[in-house]
């Protein structure tokens, strides 16, 4: 029978299946961070259980770490306890940890691929919803809760029910200045934040195949914002070349064996999907979010919506609530939205290509005098690479702050946060109320759009700055 890529990975990881369809799935790779793991390790300790496969587990502290000078340690007492607890737990249970001073430290979804820990055809989980990122490698990767983290640590398996197959085909070519961030924002705008609930989304089409590995990660990363637990893309030569020689990638004979297997990982041509959506890349424009949900998207040429023109009562109420929170007037032009801060970073857009894209716009330019802007590289290795290319100097000369790696202002668990009513152009993934700080107002954009906003002082069209 013809099967999808998701079906193949699923079938290949079935340890057991009950009559009612409840399955026990083997987990090949488990990523762990400090926020969602302490209660899981405590649970193991209380029931006298071990980590079943420490060598299939990799830990890093990313959410709570300061992005300023680290020699002083962590100032916030609670953040420090959480990071110290992760360190102690990893030591006790024999799990490899990239500590705060390790140059391989960074956002969990950036270091996995960087180290070759992320591999095609694997099941990858982490107590973090953006685990979907790793689907760019053709792995089945999804976020889990802390109880499930404990379950995976103890059994190397997870209890799951099979999701539905949803394929999104994107064909054509992106116009100049339009990126994979705009593609995924466009998709979320179309399907809504619950559009993918209960499904695994496979991204296909010639546009998707033409994207670099890092651009694919941005798309898979925000799949969760469309409600689907996992997004995946069939692996190809670009993925294999990316992984070759990475520290944790297969070596020697194993590399050849892995490559043979990875090359089989694709959806059969006549496989059927429960749902399909087709998009034309040529019609996608630079996007922004205006509201407090990732589905609240408009193009940079558009206006903020007017609740009066909405007939559905629920939608009308939520537009009104969002406009009030965001401090915006109905029908206001996107380009008239003045910003106070710019944040470039996160597991969505904190990789080297993202920094290059922003630096290209910022070269020999100054950011607007009322804007406070920062770049937080996704990992120590991204930071090192950027410095070798001189990108840090471009950012600093334009007026950006150049920081140490971590999750930072994407969710504001460390000291980097918005003040009430401060408005930010952000390359992160969520514009929820209070996400970047209580009362803070977030507009999600691509790295190029964030750089353009920093220069103009208002949301602006990146195409204006393309050479």
């Amino acid at each position, binding site marked *: 029978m013809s099967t999808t890529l998701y079906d193949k990975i699923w079938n290949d990881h079935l340890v057991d299946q009950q009559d009612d369809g409840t399955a026990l799935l083997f987990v090949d790779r488990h990523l762990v961070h400090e926020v969602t793991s302490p209660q899981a390790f405590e649970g193991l300790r209380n029931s006298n259980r071990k980590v079943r496969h420490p060598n299939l587990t990799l830990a890093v502290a990313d959410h709570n770490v300061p992005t300023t000078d680290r020699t002083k340690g962590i100032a916030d007492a609670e953040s420090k306890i959480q990071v110290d607890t992760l360190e102690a737990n990893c030591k006790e249970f024999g799990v490899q940890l990239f500590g705060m001073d390790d140059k391989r430290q960074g956002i969990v979804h950036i270091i996995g691929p960087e180290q070759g820990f992320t591999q095609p055809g694997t099941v990858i989980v982490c107590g973090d919803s953006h685990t979907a990122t790793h689907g760019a490698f053709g792995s089945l990767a999804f976020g889990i809760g802390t*109880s*499930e983290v404990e*379950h995976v640590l103890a059994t*190397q398996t997870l209890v799951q029910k099979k999701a539905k197959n949803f394929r999104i085909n994107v064909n054509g070519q992106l116009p100049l200045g339009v990126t994979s961030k705009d593609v995924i924002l466009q998709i979320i705008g179309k399907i809504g934040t619950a559009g993918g609930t209960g499904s695994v989304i496979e991204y296909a089409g010639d546009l998707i195949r033409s994207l670099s590995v890092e651009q694919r990660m941005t798309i898979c990363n925000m799949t969760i914002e469309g409600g689907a637990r996992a997004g995946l893309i069939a692996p190809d030569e670009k993925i294999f070349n990316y992984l070759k020689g990475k520290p944790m990638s297969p070596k020697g004979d194993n590399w050849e064996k892995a490559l043979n297997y990875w090359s089989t990982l694709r959806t059969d041509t006549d496989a059927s999907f429960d749902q399909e959506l087709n998009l034309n890349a040529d019609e996608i424009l630079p996007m922004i979010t205006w509201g407090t949900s990732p589905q609240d998207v408009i193009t940079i040429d558009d206006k903020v919506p007017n609740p009066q023109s909405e007939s559905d009562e629920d939608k009308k109420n939520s537009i009104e609530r969002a406009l009030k929170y965001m401090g915006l007037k109905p029908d206001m032009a996107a380009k008239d939205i003045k910003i106070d801060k710019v944040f470039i970073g996160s597991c969505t857009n904190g990789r080297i290509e993202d920094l290059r894209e922003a630096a290209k716009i910022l070269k020999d330019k100054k950011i607007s005098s009322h804007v406070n802007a920062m770049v937080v590289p996704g990992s120590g290795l991204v930071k090192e690479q950027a410095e070798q290319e001189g990108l840090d100097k471009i950012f600093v000369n334009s007026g950006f702050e150049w920081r140490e790696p971590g999750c930072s202002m994407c969710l504001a668990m460390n000291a980097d946060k918005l003040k009430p009513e401060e408005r930010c152009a952000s390359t992160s993934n969520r514009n929820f109320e209070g996400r970047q700080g209580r009362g803070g107002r977030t507009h999600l954009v691509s790295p190029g759009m964030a750089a353009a906003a920093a220069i103009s002082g208002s949301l602006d069209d990146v195409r204006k700055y393309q050479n």
Partner: protein
Amino acid sequence: MQKFNTLKSVPAYLPIVNIDTDMIIPKQFLKTIKRTGLGKNLFFEMRYNDQGKEISDFVLNQSPYNDSKILIAGKNFGCGSSREHAPWALLDFGITCVISSSYADIFYSNCFKNGILPIILEEEKIKELSEYAGRKEEISIDLNDEKIVYGNNEIKFDIDPFKKKCLLEGLDDIALSLKKSDKIENFETNLKNKKPWIFND
């Protein structure tokens, strides 16, 4: 895990769609290394003003809803972050049943690990139940019979039989899976032959 069987309470109604887990429990409370104590910060930003005082028109700050064990809310409840702190905060507040027309996947599955019953109902039934909330009348939930009783009426709801059994008996997922240790070991042995690079041996 606490068993779930029957429940009787005046439900609290929060008529907002797409309530995300950042709203249920904001990030400053994720720094805890415990599962308990989060109830006082449930819906923090809607519940307290900048000075930390209770906002009186927020439903969970009003009697009898401050003692509600059942929360009725708009569709796509629990979207966003995977944080299990969201069901922990609900549970710590005393809410053990949520009623909505849909849930985000991770939140939905997290509820069952914590003895919380998330019920899915059609929008119109939710409107009907919300009127009971408005009148401060009690409704009862019976998991075994898969029904909600309100006044002289009842509504049936559907739930996955295995999830139902786990809630009714308060079963520990890990212990259940470890009963299948033989199968896990077999799988691992095959895996080492078939895909030796996975274990990096």
